């Protein structure tokens, strides 16, 4: 599965379909990313981890 920022929703869908893999699991985190502090990055991970695990398990 892949994790991308929210800006990537449409691009990811198009690419996945072109590669013949349009049901690939994905989780999106809020944009932007580049200017965040380490603490903010860790907080994003904390917030996303349950969704991530749900995306790869049944």
């Amino acid at each position, binding site marked *: 599965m892949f994790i*991308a*920022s929210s800006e*990537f929703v449409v691009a990811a869908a198009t690419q996945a379909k072109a590669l013949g893999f349009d049901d690939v699991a994905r989780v999106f985190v809020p944009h932007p*990313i*580049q200017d965040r502090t380490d603490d903010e*990055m860790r907080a994003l*991970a904390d917030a996303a*981890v349950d969704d991530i*695990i749900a995306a*790869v398990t049944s």
Partner: protein
Amino acid sequence: MSRVVLDPTSELTPAHRERLARPASLSGLKVGLLDISKARGNVFLDQLEELLTARNATVTRFAKPTFTKPAPIDLRHEIATTCDVVIEALAD
């Protein structure tokens, strides 16, 4: 050294890959964390590694040489043969 073969099929569709069955939980599984090497992604993945290890997954870290190109074939092959689940991050 790369080896190239010619496709013997009709090539009607991009090779459709069936999604593998999802495991019930990550406990006891080998999870690969693939860093696409964009800035800040490693901090996100460090935290994820801690969180997943706490949930009893065995985490291995991988990294693409550059985020601008698809992962090299050998990296993909290594991940595919050594991990049960792969999480790739962080595209922004």
